[in-house]
């Protein structure tokens, strides 16, 4: 969200100079603008959010938005307020867009960036141990504290914190657990950790957690790689099964859709993705903070590691892969949730170009990259070598299991099984 907006500034770090009130209002307009996203496939609009009416259900009335909540952001002058002309669409700074998928927030937070930024911010506002900082860095600190570490403005669509869910860290972990059956690889800071036997973000979730997501996802990537390997195979045995790829996509689509019924988690997704995109933007280039703390580097993971050193923290060992995986995996999961690869659509487009012997499409390239990054980040081998020594049996596992994929485990009524799965998946992103 904020990274998208930052692209309109030159340099993008100028976004940190915009008043946080305007940035907060930007989320409000971005929510409203989601009604104008182009219709993809043969779907209803905003089908991927679990409801065709979710935007209108929670959006501020347009007249109120324009009269009292106009962000008025002017990329040419970050310190100004430029009111929207009445004849313009709701948001003068943004074309219609969709925010990133929840998996983007999960992957970026898995690097440990949120906790490192919290520690840096704490040092900035409580003392002078980080040395002399430029005014731009202090403006970043003010905006970060307002946007990430304080309750959102009253009645804001991104206002997630309340007395019912007072800790945003736990709220985010709750969403990750429900959507992907995944925990963050690092533990909660002591101030947030409760003394319950069960992690607080799993309370009241019941069976509503996609504990089979990782298994289905790994299986999908394996099948796609099989198709990728065999795309020019015309003579030998070809284990590619496009219909099975489609069934796996449908299973993941159903699985995630079950968590979104009626528009559940849509506001949370907007809020969490925006927060983590702010963190991502902070290390995406040599921003004033990075320069002031002598953390300049050539990629976000290196910058984050250097920033962490200043406050005695280390990011996840596979941060580089997690940063690079976040964007393409977000797009692919949206594509799956839009039903682009379901049965009857075009599952082959994941691994085949538009025409035989054409160069690979952007989708083909990106899916291959996702496979590389996912197996590197998680340690799960997807690209199993297919070539074997002549005369010896192949090491490839069976092409597909007997049963067609289902969105969840057969017995969905046993919440006691959840902690076991959590233990099995909580190491994601932290393997060395």
């Amino acid at each position: 969200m904020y990274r998208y907006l930052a692209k309109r500034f030159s340099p993008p770090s100028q976004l940190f100079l915009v008043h946080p009130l305007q940035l907060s209002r930007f989320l409000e307009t971005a929510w409203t603008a989601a009604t104008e996203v182009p219709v993809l496939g043969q779907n209803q609009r905003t089908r991927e959010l679990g409801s065709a009416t979710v935007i209108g259900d929670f959006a501020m009335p347009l007249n109120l938005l324009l009269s009292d909540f106009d962000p008025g952001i002017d990329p040419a002058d970050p310190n100004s307020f430029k009111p929207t002309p009445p004849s313009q669409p709701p948001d003068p700074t943004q074309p219609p867009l969709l925010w990133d998928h929840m998996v983007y927030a999960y992957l970026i937070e898995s690097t440990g960036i949120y906790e490192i930024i919290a520690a840096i911010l704490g040092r900035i506002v409580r003392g002078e141990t980080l040395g002399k900082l430029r005014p731009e860095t202090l403006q970043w600190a003010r905006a970060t504290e307002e946007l990430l570490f304080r309750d959102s403005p009253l009645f804001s669509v991104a206002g997630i914190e309340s007395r019912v869910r007072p800790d945003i860290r736990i709220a985010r972990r709750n969403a990750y657990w429900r959507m992907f059956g995944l925990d963050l690889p690092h533990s909660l800071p002591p101030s947030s950790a409760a003394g319950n036997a069960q992690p607080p973000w799993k309370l009241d979730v019941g069976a509503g957690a996609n504990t089979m997501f990782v298994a289905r996802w790994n299986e999908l990537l394996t099948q796609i790689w099989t198709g990728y390997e065999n795309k020019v195979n015309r003579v030998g045995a070809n284990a590619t099964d496009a219909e099975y790829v489609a069934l796996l996509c449908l299973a993941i689509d159903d699985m995630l859709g079950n968590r979104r019924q009626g528009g559940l988690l849509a506001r949370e997704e907007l809020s969490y993705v925006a927060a983590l995109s702010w963190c991502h933007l902070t290390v995406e280039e040599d921003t004033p903070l990075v320069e002031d703390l002598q953390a300049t580097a050539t990629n976000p993971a290196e910058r984050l590691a250097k920033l962490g050193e200043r406050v005695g923290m280390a990011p996840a060992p596979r941060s580089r892969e997690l940063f690079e995986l976040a964007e393409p995996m977000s797009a692919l999961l949206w594509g799956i949730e839009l039903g682009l690869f379901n049965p009857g659509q075009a599952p082959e487009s994941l691994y085949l170009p538009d025409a035989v012997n054409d160069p690979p499409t952007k989708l083909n390239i990106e899916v291959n990259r996702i496979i590389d990054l996912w197996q590197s980040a998680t340690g799960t081998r997807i690209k199993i070598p297919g070539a074997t020594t002549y005369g010896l049996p192949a090491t490839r596992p069976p092409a597909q299991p007997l049963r067609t994929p289902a969105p969840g485990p057969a017995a969905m009524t046993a919440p006691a099984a959840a902690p076991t799965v959590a233990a099995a998946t909580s190491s994601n992103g932290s393997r060395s």
Partner: protein
Amino acid sequence: MPSSKSSNPGPGQDKRPPDSAIDAELAVRLVAALEQLGVVFAPDRGKDDRNLFGGTVDPVRARASRDYEVLRGMLGRADAPTPLRMRRERSFSRGEPAVEEQDAGQRDAGQRDFSDNRVEVLDPVPLSASYAIVESLGDGSTSAVTEKVDLRPGDRTPTLHLRDVRAALPISRVEIFDNKHKLVAFGPSFDPLSQPHYQPSGGR
């Protein structure tokens, strides 16, 4: 046993092969036959999916890849098509007459081709933009409609006057392509335009 090999010519003799004369009519027929062979064996690259130059495009796959490109553009990815702000309105909403164009066939038939709505592009289109495709999924009474609108070179904020996609139909997407049919930009979806309110002109 007679040998088929020619005997070694003696020194001083001409080594060039003897000139051979060919009948002019035969030559013409031979050339025609060779040309015919050339035509017969010319590769049909569009239909041969084994060739190295690209085969027939699978429309379903191409559509899915294009949808994915639009999705990446919506998320603001680098090197993705550019999302553009657009506005849809009735062609006469600002007191202008509806655009009216006729081609020869329609003129003969006495039909008029009105544009009752238009899409105004608010952000500059990419310099390479060549034409726009406006898609509507239709409504309960109409199936999907697709309309191509050519863009005038140099017009960075064009207005698309729509004829096939009527005002009462929703627009699912506006796509802008370059002259190599590459998707370079896209616009939002639009709801059907509401019926205009006509004021009675003082009648009793």
